[in-house]
């Protein structure tokens, strides 16, 4: 084991400082050090996307990132999306369209798609499916996720593009 290093990050607006091994994965840091268990590990080899978070505004696989790489950065996880009781447009659309079943992959989809809708406010189905292809879901068969993204995109456009 190598000497521990201090990692200071801001997660969902709250500051965390922890001494961790350099080899600790960011997803383990978030889950076990910060207690934010909404980010899930599906494969730990960067394929399934369940561990997707937003790091300084960009979606990343937290299973392929070391905690020390996040030093000084700002992180958003699924717990940081909803504002109190009110869901984001994307979360609400997932609910209305039954875009989740077991829900294990869902946080990764939400994080990836939140970024996507910010960059692509008016996506067509091909663009949505292309983006979704970076996250695996074994329950839904994706159709309702596609519908949810379409619904959320439309509502966000009507509201003026703020998620």
């Amino acid at each position: 084991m190598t000497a521990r290093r201090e990692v200071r990050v801001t997660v969902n607006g709250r500051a965390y400082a922890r001494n961790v091994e350099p080899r600790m994965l960011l997803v383990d840091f978030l889950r076990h050090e910060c207690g934010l268990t909404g980010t899930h590990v599906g494969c730990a080899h960067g394929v399934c996307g369940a561990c997707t978070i937003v790091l300084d505004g960009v979606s990343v696989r937290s299973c392929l990132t070391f905690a020390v790489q996040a030093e000084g950065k700002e992180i958003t996880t699924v717990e940081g999306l909803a504002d109190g009781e009110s869901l984001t447009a994307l979360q609400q659309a997932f609910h209305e369209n039954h875009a989740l079943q077991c829900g294990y992959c869902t946080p990764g989809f939400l994080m990836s798609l939140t970024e996507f809708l910010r960059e692509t406010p008016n996506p067509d189905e091909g663009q949505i499916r292309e983006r979704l292809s970076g996250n695996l879901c074994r329950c839904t068969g994706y159709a309702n996720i596609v519908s949810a993204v379409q619904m959320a995109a439309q509502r966000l456009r009507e509201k003026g593009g703020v998620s």
Partner: protein
Amino acid sequence: MSVPGDTRGTGTWVGRTVPRKEDLRLLRGMGTYIDDVPEPRGTLHLAVLRSPYAHARIRTIETAEAEALDGVVAVVTGTEVAELIPPFAGDYEKPGFKMSHRPALATDTVRFVGDGVALVLAENAYIAEDALGLVFVDYEQLPAVSDVEEALKADAPRVHEELADNVLIEGGNRTEGFDEVFEAADHILRERFRINRVAGVAMEPRGCLAVYEKSDDAVTLWTGTQVPHMLRIGIARYLGWPESRVRVAAPDVGGGFGPKMYLYPEELLAVAMAREYRCPVKWIEDRLEDFLTTFQARDHVYDVAVAYDDDGTVRAVEVDVAVNSGAYSNYPMGASLEPFQGPLNMPGPYRFRQFAFTCRGVATHTCPTGAFRGVSAPCVTMAMEGMMDRIARHLGLDRVEVRRRNLVRPDEFPYVNVVNQFYVTGSYVECMDRALEMVDYGGYLAARPPERLVDGKYRGIGIAVVTELGGHGAARYKARGLPDLPGFDTAHVELEPNGRVRATTSFSSQGQGHETTFAQIIADELGVSIDDVAIRGGDTGNSPFGTGTFASRGAVVGGGAVMRASGDLRERIKKFAAHLLEASPDDIVLEGGYAHVQGVREMHVSLYDVARAAYGLTESMQLPEGEEFGLQAIATYDPPASSISNACHIACVGVDAATGLVEVERYVVVHDCGRVVNPLLVKGQIQGGVAQGLGQALFEEILYDAEGQMLSATLMDYMIPTALDVPTLEMEHIESPATDNIGGFKGAGEGGVIGALPAIACAVGDALAPLGANVNRLPLRPDTVLGLIEGAEA
């Protein structure tokens, strides 16, 4: 329609599209999956050292270096574990079965890559993993066999030395007069179908946390399972403890699909270690372990012969099924599941009256196989529908016409098929006709050139008419001789003192939406909103005993239990309300959270006030004469027969002539699962099931080499479908309610995958038919398909 024993209320929740109650926590990241269950102080992390060989003798295990590592608490070998956990069996002594045992960790012989040989307990998961690298095992490698046909050969390496050969189970049957009818038919066609081995690949891998409860000398096992009650029976049995000292609780479970309905060695290890070391023990597998050790499925070979007449009428069907059972039989289903479910599902919606089958479950040096969504039905349905297409091609008839001549007709219900399946209601012809209309079958054929090549792609259409056997009760499991599967389920429903409803059931959920669908059923029975109904389950510590979540049992058996219990509760509520309103219980109606006197709405009392009275929370005594305090009811439900749903799936595919890539361009389903509780959720089940079937049909395959080494142990090698692969289904429902169960429901969990294999395989077969290509194996990956195209062209 009137159903015997129907206790439905007057409500309107059942049948409505209602978004799920469980979504609200899952969407916020507030679900509690197994690795999210809070770890008690002092939790040790368990890791399993796994065999790199498919078959080997363990000579020595060196643990000293691992034990010396900081943070390692213990290293325990299979021999040491055997003193705490005896080898466990998946099957029971009976004709045709052979007993085989699985030690929780291998003691002297490993039988597949991934078989556990030692475990490490350490202060955290990183250290536990480090320590695995410091345990040194000296193996003597032995010859291994991974292929089912190789394993059947007389000189094949034997998986279990105590058995005479590798056949774990065999059976067969022949209808009376089969041979005469078979030989008298105008034509006979034979075909061999090979079905790929697949993995469930739930997005959440397996895992468990065993918490030693020191004051009770008991263990609570948190585990991602479909069957908490079955697990408790198995754990108590194999550890020799009273069941009162074992509590099994399933938190949110990230996908089940069948593989999570078994007792796994790691669960026994965690429980035994927690008790041995008097502390919490946690094991979370990684994806590699999931691919190596979580029970897989399919890997079947079907030899089919169909005898039929000039007009396409099938007279007799014969099938031999060989199933690769892997290294061990699994508790509680044994090795009988896949071999026998194949023949049982083969006649499906068809009327032929002569059937002969033989089946075998064969041990190999591979991961054990077992239940996965649809069990054998998707595979055998692909074989049956494949034969229907071959008959049509042979006779020059349309495929639809051949099916129509063989389907059970609308006026023939109730119908008992050739393997004694009781089809109480169904809509085989209706579903097919509507699906053909939706896809414009005639137009599709007319627009297609004879060579089927359009824009570089061979275009094909595949039709599958399928049945889905589910919702089995006790009779089914007893007929199969499975003592540890009771078949019934249980619900406990109470009106709480504050007038809200709480129900606990013997079910656990892996995404099916029981918190919503069971609430819909109760809401109708009690005249309340689903917002006032809380559903809990999956915990032997606080939910009633029952069988669990598999085989599309949720709505039929779980829903049935919920309906019975809430019906009983309704009658009790009526007595209390009648007492308060000075009316007769027969005149009380429950609606909108109130009880009122029929026809006199102003004579009402809220369920809150009824509950206060019933729980003695009033200034004066308000107990009706002869009634006891409290408002609760518990009921079991055991459906008299299996429920049999049906559907027609039609897939339109394009097969790239240059690359062999198959694209599913259009997919139509007309589905009948009886009375629908929530159309949104049923559609979700079908879309998701078709996606899994599409994956098996086109890419997924667990591959072992001849020595039993796995070649597909990552998500880069084992490809499950992405959003680019699965089209949005066009879907309609027909409702033929079951008339022989309490709710009129039929199962809906498995039909999607059952239809997808035959629909897609038949579509590719159709696309390549002009080339003379024979599509008789899965998966239809580009290299395979290109081989078919080139082979046919050569």
